[in-house]
């Protein structure tokens, strides 16, 4: 029994024009929430598809729960919500769900019982309306997303892989998804999701892996990643924004290496060997109206920008993640 839900070793996937994934290795511990981060075109979806044996890697190995992912039955323990979502439109909701569950090795009778449970939980089946009897295309977009999510979880998978799960969700459904992910974690399941929204990842993940241009930039527990980046960051809030000479202070390369300017809030990375006290004095001298000045660990977003940079978002790479 392996402690790793996913173990990817030296995986390479080449296409004619470009290398989608080069020499990628990553380990996802069982029971963790794992974020696969990267800009569009970084190779996230390609990696996920290789995990699911939808496409074959050119070299390297992928094991799930200690077995090669090509072993029969291994993928029945995985639930997958692809970025491109969709169901058979003309089919009855209940029949679609039953079909997808049967493909994962659940018997028709057992599937029917679980479908009722899930439809009730997502209020798709109430005393006066059972949407399970309707055809998929009679459902609203939000309801279809719920059905798709049910399809991902119906066979009670040990590993749940969500590709860009937050894209296209309204705030209410996004919150429901976060709750669902945390519920899965409480029940000891492993959740892997890809996203390019760092905020979600920082709040939810135990561990992350940042990939860009098909290569791993860094990975590890979120706390370790942040610690590794060092406390060379300053969170600065100004009332009324950067007025007077404040801008020129922030542009001083002796003190400041980079600054993420959000008008009233600034995340500052100090220049090597710069003294934060000196920066504070200079800001006061410049007449800044300081609301907050705090030495902090960098946000994932900041780390991402630092490590991947604007050039990490490679242009001309069509396709998904």
């Amino acid at each position: 029994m392996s402690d790793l839900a996913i173990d990817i070793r030296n995986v390479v996937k080449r296409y004619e024009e470009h290398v989608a994934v080069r020499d990628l290795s990553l380990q996802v511990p069982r029971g963790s929430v794992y974020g696969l981060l990267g800009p569009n075109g970084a190779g996230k979806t390609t990696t996920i598809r290789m995990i699911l044996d939808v496409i074959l890697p050119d070299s390297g190995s992928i094991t799930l729960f200690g077995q090669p992912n090509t072993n029969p039955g291994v993928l029945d323990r995985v639930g997958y919500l692809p970025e491109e979502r969709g169901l058979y439109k003309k089919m009855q909701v209940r029949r679609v769900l039953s079909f997808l569950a049967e493909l994962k090795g659940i018997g028709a009778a057992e599937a029917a019982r679980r479908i009722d449970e899930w439809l009730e939980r997502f209020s798709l089946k109430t005393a006066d309306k059972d949407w399970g009897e309707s055809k998929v295309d009679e459902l609203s977009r939000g309801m279809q997303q719920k059905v798709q999510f049910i399809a991902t979880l119906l066979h009670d998978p040990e590993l749940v892989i969500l590709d860009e799960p937050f894209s296209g969700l309204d705030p209410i459904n996004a919150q429901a998804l976060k709750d669902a992910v945390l519920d899965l974690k409480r029940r000891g399941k492993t959740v892997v999701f890809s996203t390019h929204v760092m905020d979600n990842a920082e709040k939810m993940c135990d561990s992350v892996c940042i990939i860009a241009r098909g290569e791993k930039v860094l990975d590890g527990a979120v706390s370790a990643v942040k610690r590794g980046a060092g406390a060379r960051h300053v969170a600065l809030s100004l009332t009324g924004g950067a007025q007077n000479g404040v801008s020129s202070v922030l542009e001083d390369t002796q003190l400041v290496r980079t600054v993420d300017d959000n008008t009233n809030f600034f995340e500052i990375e100090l220049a090597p060997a710069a003294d934060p006290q000196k920066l504070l004095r200079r800001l006061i001298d410049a007449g800044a109206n300081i609301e907050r000045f705090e030495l902090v660990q960098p946000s994932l977003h900041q780390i991402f920008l630092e490590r991947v940079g604007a050039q990490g978002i490679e242009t001309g790479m069509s396709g998904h993640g």
Partner: protein
Amino acid sequence: MDKKVFIVAKREYLERVRTRWFVIGTLLFPAVIAGFSIMMAYVASKGGASSAVRHITIINTTSTDLGQRVADALMADTSVAGPDTIKPRVLNVAPADLAQAEAQASSEVKLPNHIAGYLVLSDSTLAGKSVRYAGRNASSITDMDKLQSTVRQAMMMVRLQTEGVKPEIITDLTKTRLRFNTERLSERGRTGSGQAGLFAGLIVGVMLLMLIMLHGQNILRGVIEEKTTRVAEVVISSVKPETLLAGKVIGVGGVGLTQQVAWLAITAYLVSFFMPIVLKGTTVGASASANAAAASPVTGVLNSLTPMVIGVALGYFIIGFVFYATLFAAAGAMVNSEQEAQQAAMPVIALVMSAWLCVNPIMLAPTGKLAVILSWLPWASPIIMPIRMGMTTVSPVEIAGSMIVAVLGSIAAMWLGGRIYRVGMLMYGKKPSFREVAKWIKYA
């Protein structure tokens, strides 16, 4: 084999069989075919002539009883439709009074609800040269055929009588019905009626063609639906694309087979139920032979269907469907919309039609070079072979060889189609060029 194949096949089968169009198509088609064949049999049994051929005036200017004989023959003919209360009127006139009689008759034709026309029998008729008819139904081919044959027969009888032949002998001589029965002889002896064998082969060929055109394209549409709704990715994360493809072919093939068995059964039932009712009006005299004639193609076809023939036909049927269904699925996987699908399906349809267009030349020469060559081409043999086997004796070696090649062809189609399908199912965006598809096949 992966048992998930059957889960996929079950879905494909049930979702299609449940649709309204399947039910309508399954019931309507046999109704149309049965109605058409009963109508044809009815027309054939009636000889096609209407009661108008009796509703005439016969002007006889010969000094014989030719006019009355024609009238009697028309009344005795059971193949003429309608009641026998309407009888031809016979006018025996001198040649000099012909013009007046004709003017009288022609004015009667013009009256509403009166005679349909008039027939002029002259010495020229008796000499076997000409007979004249004028009437409203003069352009009806069946009516004119009936009159012509009746006059010819009556004229023969009169002439024979004039030559001094005994009346009993004349009746015996002229009342012959010649039926042309064919029987196919081969090295193995009698193998049933020649026409029936061809008929059975053609049925297999036509049904396979319909199966390919209707349900092969059904697969194409199903694949595009899975692509455009993006459900493909979820499904492919649970089953291998090859399994999905195989399940589709089995499921949709099952739908086609169900429909065609239903078609055959319903058509056979409707024909056997309604045919006697419709033909009841003619159950006098010629009825026995008419019924036998109507029944003979059916019994003939049944007789020529030995277990061997059924087995071989079914084998080709399945091989042919698998071959084309896989190619249709691959075509569907290459494109992103219904509109593009028509274009993608064209090469596959062209392949089917190229085989189908050769059916006619092959029926004319079932042992010719073209027939032999096509029997060895996997995309043509499933259509061509059953027809050839129906018409002539094909050596078991040739059948076995052709089948092996067809099976190999289907395996090649599955390999090729499976690879295109595997890559194509997850490719969105612009339609790939042939070079790109070639790459898919290489990299899959």
